[in-house]
């Protein structure tokens, strides 16, 4: 919803209509600049927040998050809870197709949900509530019994515990419906390298997209550094088309801050033993506002509780929020030496962990830093193989119960995630704050801050309208004044 008059703000009016102009399709090429080239093209396996956002280029989800709440994506309607919130009947829109032209039916939806229950999947929290997912996650072959295909367009999902908020999980990109050949149903399809160095890959418009053919003809994805992005935005056109930069920092005027929904936690590992109390107290005393302000380049928010405000339905009552930890007197602690595990790929996380190192030293705790790439980091977190780990968790779901399940899944695994979801399910807002505090203690994790990205469009690029959950329908982007090539 861009450049619209105040009278039309926030309406269910296409962005272009609100702007008084209509989209032009003619020869519009998009170039989406990211901090790094996409590393993971499978929505069920992506964990990097940028990868998860960029996957919206190729994939479509059963539901989407609209300003007024959940809205149909591939589904014909938002499913109503049945059987006390333990069952949901998912009905697909008619005549859906994947980007390769093959029909998209209930079997594809069921298969896409079922694969989220496979062992080792990073987004098992989506399938976790489904009846029979436990056994599959533990290694039993097959699909969860709670996923039943009723017809060409209908799937019945039965949960193992009441979770009325379950449809919120279907609006997250890992729940996107993917064909057996790996095709999605999003606005664009394909990943053809467009440069000799392969830095940018190009996808073409998907005529069969359920929301309608995208306005742009192509969308290219690739890495741009901040200075290069700024230069290209000044020229309005990049080498690969009209630029939309998705980076933590603003690449130019007109940047739009996306919700801060990647929450970073300091998780205490089981091998800390007797030192855990001292480490917990030291980490708890860290000034999170300072961390968020000084070390996070994107939109940020210090975490007073387990979940950022972007996930909560309303601000928590003051008494429910955790008080800012007092610095506390320095005291002589027993000689403790710990290792801080951090993702090597994130310079931001590395900077934060260095700050933690200093603060822990002030508290008499010596620490070293261990960096690990994503392939080694997540298995170690899952196995509890760390003293303290700085764990960034992209919170994809728009409901607290599901988002808490995501956190618990990432930090402590399936059992904790199930407890988190069940404990927060259908909780009244007044009880949410204490429940989140209790959950943070149960997970033995110190919430530090939440961070997000900024979307900076080239001046001629229109239609940038991030959804409340921070996702973008890239098919809605179009160009004004024929600035595209």
């Amino acid at each position, binding site marked *: 919803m861009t450049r619209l008059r105040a009278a*039309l703000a926030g309406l269910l009016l*296409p962005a272009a209509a*609100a702007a*008084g*102009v209509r989209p032009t*399709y*003619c020869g519009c090429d998009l170039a989406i600049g990211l901090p790094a080239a996409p590393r993971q093209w499978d929505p069920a396996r992506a964990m990097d927040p940028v990868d998860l956002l960029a996957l919206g280029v190729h994939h479509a989800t059963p539901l989407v998050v609209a300003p007024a709440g959940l809205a149909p994506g591939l589904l014909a309607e938002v499913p109503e809870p049945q059987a006390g919130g333990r069952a949901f009947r998912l009905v697909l829109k008619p005549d859906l197709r994947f980007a390769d032209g093959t029909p998209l039916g209930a079997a594809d939806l069921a298969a896409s949900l079922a694969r989220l229950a496979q062992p080792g999947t990073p987004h098992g929290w989506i399938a976790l509530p489904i009846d029979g997912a436990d056994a599959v996650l533990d290694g039993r072959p097959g699909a969860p019994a709670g996923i039943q295909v009723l017809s060409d367009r209908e799937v019945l999902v039965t949960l193992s515990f009441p979770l009325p908020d379950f449809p919120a999980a279907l609006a997250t990109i890992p729940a996107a419906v993917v064909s057996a050949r790996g095709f999605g149903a999003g606005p664009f399809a394909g990943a053809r390298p467009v440069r000799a160095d392969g830095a940018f890959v190009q996808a073409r418009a998907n*005529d069969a997209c359920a929301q*309608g*053919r995208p306005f742009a003809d192509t969308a290219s994805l690739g890495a741009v550094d901040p200075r290069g992005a700024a230069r290209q935005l000044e020229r309005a056109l990049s080498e690969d088309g009209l630029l939309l930069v998705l980076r933590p920092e603003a690449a130019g005027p007109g940047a739009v801050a996306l919700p801060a929904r990647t929450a970073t936690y300091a998780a205490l590992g089981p091998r800390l033993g007797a030192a855990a109390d001292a480490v917990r107290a030291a980490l708890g005393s860290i000034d999170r506002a300072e961390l968020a302000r000084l070390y996070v380049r994107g939109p940020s928010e210090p975490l007073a509780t387990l979940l950022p405000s972007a996930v909560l339905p309303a601000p928590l009552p003051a008494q429910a929020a955790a008080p800012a930890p007092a610095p506390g007197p320095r005291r002589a602690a027993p000689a403790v030496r710990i290792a801080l595990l951090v993702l090597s790929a994130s310079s931001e996380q590395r900077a934060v962990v260095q700050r933690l190192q200093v603060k822990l030293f002030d508290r008499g705790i010596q620490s070293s830093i261990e960096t690990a790439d994503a392939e080694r980091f997540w298995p170690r977190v899952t196995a509890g193989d760390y003293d303290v780990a700085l764990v960034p968790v992209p919170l994809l779901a728009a409901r607290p119960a599901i988002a808490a399940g995501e956190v618990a899944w990432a930090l402590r695994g399936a059992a904790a995630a199930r407890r988190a979801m069940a404990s927060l399910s259908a909780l009244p807002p007044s009880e949410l704050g204490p429940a989140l505090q209790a959950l943070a203690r149960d997970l033995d994790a110190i919430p530090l801050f939440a961070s997000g990205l900024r979307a900076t469009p080239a001046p001629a690029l229109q239609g940038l309208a991030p959804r409340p959950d921070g996702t973008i329908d890239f098919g809605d982007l179009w160009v004004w004044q024929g600035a595209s090539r």
Partner: protein
Amino acid sequence: MCLALLAFALGAAPAAPPGLAGVAEALAAEIGPPPEGRRGLALAVEGVAPALAPPLESALAAALSRRGYAVSPLRGAADPEPRAREAGADWVVRVRGGLAPGRTEIALVGELIPTWSSFFLQRRPGVRPVPPRLVQARAAADPETLLLARPGRAADASRVAIRVLARVPGRVLALAVGDPVGDGAASAILAVTAGEAILLSGGGARLASRPLELAGRRPVRDPAATAAIGDFGGGRLALAVAGEPAGRVFAWQGGRLEPAGTIAAAPLCATDGGRIFGAFAPGKGLLADVLSPTIDPEAPPRSGREWLAVAAAPRGGPYPVAALGAGGRLELLRGDLGTAGVLDGVGAGFALADLDGDGTAEVVASTGTPGTPERVRVLEYGAAVAVAFESPPIAGAILAGAAGDVTGDGIDDAVLAAVVAADGGVATDLLLVTADPRVVP
């Protein structure tokens, strides 16, 4: 021989326009034959359009003469009653007239005032011997009468009034203005939203509506439609919605919009000169470069270009058709659909309307520039000052337009659709853009 003389006489004295003759005859009938042999009648025609007064005077004189009056016209600004007394007339008829509201009829109102000298009123010479009488009549206004009844001040494209005709729920995607019945009577407005076709009168009153079934419609990211009013076989109201396999034709019958068939093309516009059909680009809300006078689903695109909208001038002119492309570039097309000129900076809601009646259509368009408030502009291609008129900021987003004679003055008006916020959703204000001097302050 007698027949030949009669034919010569008829040929030598061309009849007055049917509208004028009819209304004059009706008024003479109201007046009736001369009572008591008082035949002297002074006729004063006042308060009508300057062009209308002389022929109306002639028509009335002829009609009254046929009823036995000796008619002497009174002209000038002076009060006709004392002048009639002075001239020895038995009666004076003061006639005022004009187009009735709705602009479909010419109406006359007359005062039949006795002016003869009464023996019994010799000491009071100004007193009327019998009470005066009001007479009135009306008749259908044909195009010639409409032409004569135009106000003295000519329409001027730089003097334009913008009024809200009606508010329609939802976003109007396409508009058409024209005669929904084909009898040459009043124009109506066809407004098409994603889910409804609505027919409104020239005054903005809802005449009929019909839901449009969504089943079978492929999703289009930016909804779009076309609409036209003209001769489409079984009906005169045609529309097409992007994503649907065929256009639809409706007939306005018995106050309802009745389906009258489908057409394998998108009706883009219709004028006195014919119709133009096109096609939506697959999966898009844009029109392919198919401009055809016939329904030809196999017609190949003329080029790879795509249009946001196509419009026609209701009365033709040097560029009777225009097509709006990317970036606000409007191509003005000749009758053979070749390019006659280009105008830049034209918003998505536009119409070709000959607002000033000079035979060349002006472009009535929204500004449509991102980041700026919407304004209505009247653009004259080839004029020294291209922008003849620009309105103050208009609420809403103008995304569709059409042209036709809405006010009934015989000259084109434009109707634009401005999408506005309303009741938690959206609605569309239909804006009348007219240079009709009766409307323009």
